[in-house]
C-alpha cells in the first residue's frame, strides 16, 4: 500500500508530463494546465499523508523497485527512501510546485506552447521528486541530471531567441561541470565503501574514517561539494543562474529560486555524516558560501533587470545556506532553504506579475509607481522583501538570524562578511521595491494605460506564499525548535540549541539594525533623492565593474571557452590535416618510390641491355664467389 502510494507520488507528475506531451496540443490550454497542476497537487497531498504518517511513527520508509545497474561488487537498485529529510523537501517542492503550476495557468495563457510548458514543469517536478526520494546516490543523480535537463528546456523555452538558448546551454554545461564532480565523488565513495546507499553509507564512512581513509573521504566530500556548487550556483559555477532568468518567470520561481538550486543543500545535508568527518572541506564550503553571498549581493546592488536582482539575491542567499552547511549547522541551512523558498518564490512570482502587467518589460528603470495599479502584488512582494531583508517577525528574520548566530559562534570573520552581505540584501531589495512600486511610472504611455492588477490565478499563489513568508519562521523559532527535533534522526544529535542569552538577543538586534540601515540607505537614495539608475553606458568606475558582474563571465570566456574553441579550431584546421598527411605520407612515399622506379622504365632499349648485361655479370660473379 505504502509502496504503491509512493510510486504514485513519484509518477503522478510524470503522467502529467506524458499527457501534456502527447495530448496537450489537442486539448484546450486550460485543460492541459489543469491536468499539469492536478498531478502535482496529487503528489503534494500524498506527501502530506506520508508526512503525517512519519510524524506518527517516526520511521523512515525505504523500498527497492527493481535492480538497476550492477557494477563492481555491488548492485544498485532503483530504490526509494522516504525519511524526514526527503519528506520535508517533498512537501515544499510539491507544495510550491502546485502553487506555481496554478500561477502558470494564467501566466502562460497567451503562449502557443503552453502544453509544452506544463509538460516540462511536470517533468521537472518528477525529476525533483526522484532526486529527493532516491535511496542511493545514483538514483539521486538521475534526478540531479534530470532537473538540469528540465532547467535547460525551460530556460530555452522561448527557443526562437538564440540568446535564451545560449543561456540554457550555459546552464546545462555549467551544471554538468558540477555533475562530473559529483560523479567522481560517487566513484570515490563506491570504490572505498562498495555501496552508495544512503542508509549504508553512514556506517561505512565512519568505519573507513577509523581505518585511515580520511584522505579519500576528503576528496569525496570535496567532489560532492563541487557537484553542489554547480547545481546550487556557488562560486565558481554560479554564473549560469543569472542568465537562466531568460526562462519564463514561473520557471525562475520554481526551479531557480525555490527548488532545484536547493538540491546542493539537500545533498550536503543528506551526506552530513561525511562532511562532519572532513572539517577541511567544511571550511572550504563555509568560505565559498560566504564569498558567494558577498559577491552576489554586491552585484545585485546595481542590477537593473528586476529578475536579475532576484537571481543574484538567490545566489547570495544560497551562499548563506552553504555558510551554515560549512559550519555544520545543517538544520539551520534547511530552515533557511524553506523560508527562502517561500519568500523568494513569492518575489519571483510577484515580479512575474509585474512583468505580466507591463507586457514583458523587465527593466526597473522603466517601472515605478505600480503600487496603486497592482496593490496585491505590491503588498505580497513587500512582505517577502521584508522577510528576505530579515525584518522581525517575518520568516527570513528567524532563519537568517540563525545562520548569523552560528557564524558568530564559529568564526567572527565569516559573521562580519555575512552580515555585510545581508545589509546589502536589505538595500538592493528595497531598491527594487522603490524603483518598481514607488514614485511615478517611467514607462511608455501605452503601458501606463494598460496597467492592471493580475488575475486571481496569479494573485492567489502570491497571497498564499506571502502568508507563508510571514509565518514560516514558526517552524523553528528559537524557543520551540520543531524543525530541529524533526530532523534529529537525520542529523543524529549534532545540532546545538542556541540558548537565548544576552549575546543572542544582541546579535538579533545587530542583524535587525543592519537590515534597517540597508533599508534607510535605499530609501534616502531612491525616494528622497529620487535617483534613477543611469543608462548602461553612463556607468563608470567601480560601479561599472560591479554592474558588469565583476567581469566574471568575460573571465570565463577568456580563460576557458575561448581557449577551448581556439584549441578546437587549431585541431580542426591544423592538426587533423597534419595527422591525415602523416597517414598519406606512407602512400606518398610508396608513390614517390614508384615514380622513381618508373624512370628506369624509360623505354630505352640500350639502357635495358646495359642493365641486363651488367646483371648477368653480377650474377655470374656472385655465383662464382658463392661457390
Amino acid at each position, binding site marked *: 500500500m505504502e509502496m504503491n502510494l509512493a510510486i504514485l507520488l513519484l509518477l503522478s507528475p510524470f503522467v502529467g508530463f506524458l499527457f501534456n506531451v502527447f495530448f496537450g496540443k489537442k486539448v484546450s490550454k486550460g485543460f492541459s494546465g489543469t491536468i499539469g497542476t492536478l498531478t502535482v497537487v496529487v503528489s503534494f497531498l500524498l506527501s502530506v499523508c506520508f508526512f503525517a504518517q512519519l510524524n506518527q511513527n517516526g520511521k523512515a520508509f525505504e523500498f527497492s523497485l527493481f535492480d538497476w545497474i550492477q557494477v563492481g561488487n555491488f548492485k544498485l537498485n532503483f530504490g526509494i527512501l522516504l525519511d524526514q529529510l526527503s519528506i520535508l523537501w517533498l512537501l515544499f517542492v510539491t507544495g510550491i510546485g502546485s502553487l506555481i503550476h496554478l500561477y502558470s495557468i494564467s501566466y502562460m495563457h497567451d503562449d502557443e506552447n503552453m502544453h509544452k510548458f506544463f509538460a516540462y514543469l511536470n517533468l521537472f517536478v518528477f525529476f525533483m521528486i526522484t532526486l529527493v526520494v532516491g535511496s542511493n546516490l545514483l538514483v539521486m543523480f538521475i534526478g540531479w541530471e534530470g532537473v538540469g535537463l528540465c532547467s535547460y528546456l525551460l530556460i530555452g523555452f522561448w527557443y526562437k531567441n538564440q540568446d535564451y538558448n545560449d543561456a540554457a546551454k550555459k546552464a546545462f554545461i555549467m551544471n554538468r561541470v558540477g555533475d562530473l564532480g559529483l560523479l567522481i565523488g560517487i566513484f570515490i565513495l563506491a570504490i572505498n565503501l562498495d555501496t552508495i546507499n544512503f542508509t549504508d553509507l553512514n556506517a561505512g564512512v565512519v568505519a573507513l574514517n577509523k581505518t585511515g581513509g580520511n584522505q579519500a573521504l576528503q576528496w569525496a566530500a570535496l567532489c560532492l561539494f563541487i557537484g553542489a556548487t554547480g547545481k546550487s550556483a556557488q562560486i565558481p559555477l554560479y554564473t549560469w543562474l543569472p542568465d537562466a532568468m531568460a526562462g519564463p518567470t514561473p520557471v525562475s520561481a520554481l526551479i531557480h529560486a525555490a527548488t532545484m538550486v536547493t538540491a546542493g543543500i539537500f545533498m550536503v545535508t543528506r551526506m552530513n555524516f561525511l562532511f562532519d568527518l572532513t572539517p577541511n572541506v567544511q571550511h572550504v564550503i563555509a568560505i565559498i558560501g560566504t564569498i558567494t553571498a558577498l559577491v552576489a549581493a554586491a552585484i545585485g546592488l546595481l542590477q537593473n533587470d528586476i529578475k536579475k536582482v532576484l537571481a543574484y539575491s538567490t545566489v547570495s542567499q544560497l551562499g548563506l545556506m552553504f555558510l551554515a552547511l560549512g559550519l555544520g549547522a545543517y538544520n539551520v541551512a534547511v530552515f533557511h532553504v524553506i523560508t527562502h523558498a517561500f519568500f523568494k518564490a513569492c518575489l519571483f512570482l510577484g515580479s512575474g506579475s509585474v512583468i505580466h502587467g507591463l507586457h514583458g518589460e523587465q527593466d526597473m528603470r522603466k517601472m515605478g509607481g505600480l503600487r496603486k495599479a497592482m496593490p496585491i502584488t505590491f503588498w505580497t512582494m513587500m512582505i517577502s522583501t521584508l522577510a528576505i531583508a530579515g525584518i522581525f517577525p517575518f520568516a527570513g528574520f528567524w532563519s537568517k538570524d540563525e545562520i548569523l548566530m552560528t557564524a558568530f559562534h564559529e568564526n567572527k570573520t565569516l559573521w562580519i562578511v555575512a552580515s555585510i552581505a545581508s545589509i546589502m540584501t536589505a538595500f538592493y531589495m528595497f531598491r527594487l521595491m522603490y524603483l518598481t512600486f514607488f514614485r511615478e511610472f517611467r514607462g511608455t504611455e501605452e503601458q501606463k494605460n494598460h496597467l492592471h492588477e493580475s488575475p486571481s490565478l496569479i494573485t492567489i499563489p502570491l497571497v498564499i506564499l506571502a502568508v507563508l513568508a510571514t509565518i514560516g519562521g514558526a517552524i523553528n523559532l528559537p524557543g520551540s525548535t520543531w524543525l530541529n527535533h524533526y530532523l534529529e534522526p537525520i542529523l543524529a544529535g549534532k545540532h546545538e540549541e542556541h540558548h537565548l542569552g544576552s549575546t543572542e538577543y544582541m546579535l538579533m538586534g545587530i542583524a535587525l539594525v543592519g537590515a534597517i540601515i540597508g533599508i534607510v540607505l535605499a530609501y534616502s537614495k531612491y525616494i528622497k533623492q529620487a535617483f534613477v539608475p543611469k543608462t548602461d553606458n553612463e556607468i563608470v568606475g567601480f560601479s561599472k565593474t560591479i554592474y558588469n558582474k565583476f567581469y566574471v563571465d568575460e573571465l570565463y570566456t577568456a580563460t576557458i571557452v575561448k581557449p577551448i574553441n581556439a584549441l578546437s579550431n587549431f585541431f580542426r584546421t591544423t592538426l587533423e590535416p597534419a595527422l591525415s598527411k602523416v597517414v598519406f605520407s606512407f602512400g606518398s612515399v610508396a608513390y614517390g618510390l614508384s615514380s622513381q622506379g*618508373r624512370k628506369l*622504365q*624509360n*623505354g*630505352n*632499349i*640500350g639502357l*635495358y*641491355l*646495359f642493365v641486363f*648485361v651488367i646483371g648477368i655479370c653480377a650474377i655470374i660473379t656472385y655465383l662464382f664467389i658463392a661457390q
Partner: protein
Amino acid sequence: MGNILNEIGIENYIFLSVLLFCIGVFGVLYRRNAIIVFMSIEIMLNAVNLLFVAFSTYHQDAEGQVFVFFSMAVAAAEVAVGLAILVSVFRNLGSIDIDNLKNLKG
C-alpha cells in the same frame, strides 16, 4: 685420326668463344643501328655454337652438334622474323635507330 684437341687445347676454344661473345655484347651496346645489333647477336650465337662443337668433340658425343643444329634453326627463324619486324618498324618510323624505339616506356 687423333683428337684435335690434343693439339689445340679446349682452353683456347673457350677463350676464343668468350672473346667472340664479348665482342657481340659490345656490339649490341655500342651501336644504334638495329641491323648491326642483329649482327652482333649472330656473333654471340656463333660464339656459343663454337663452344658447343668444341665440347662435343671433347666429350666425343654428337649431341652437342645436334644442339648447334637446332640453334641454327632458331637463329634462322629469329633473323627472319626480326628483320621483318625491322622492316615494318622502318616503314612506320623511317628509321631503325634503337634509341628512337621508346614505346616500351612505362
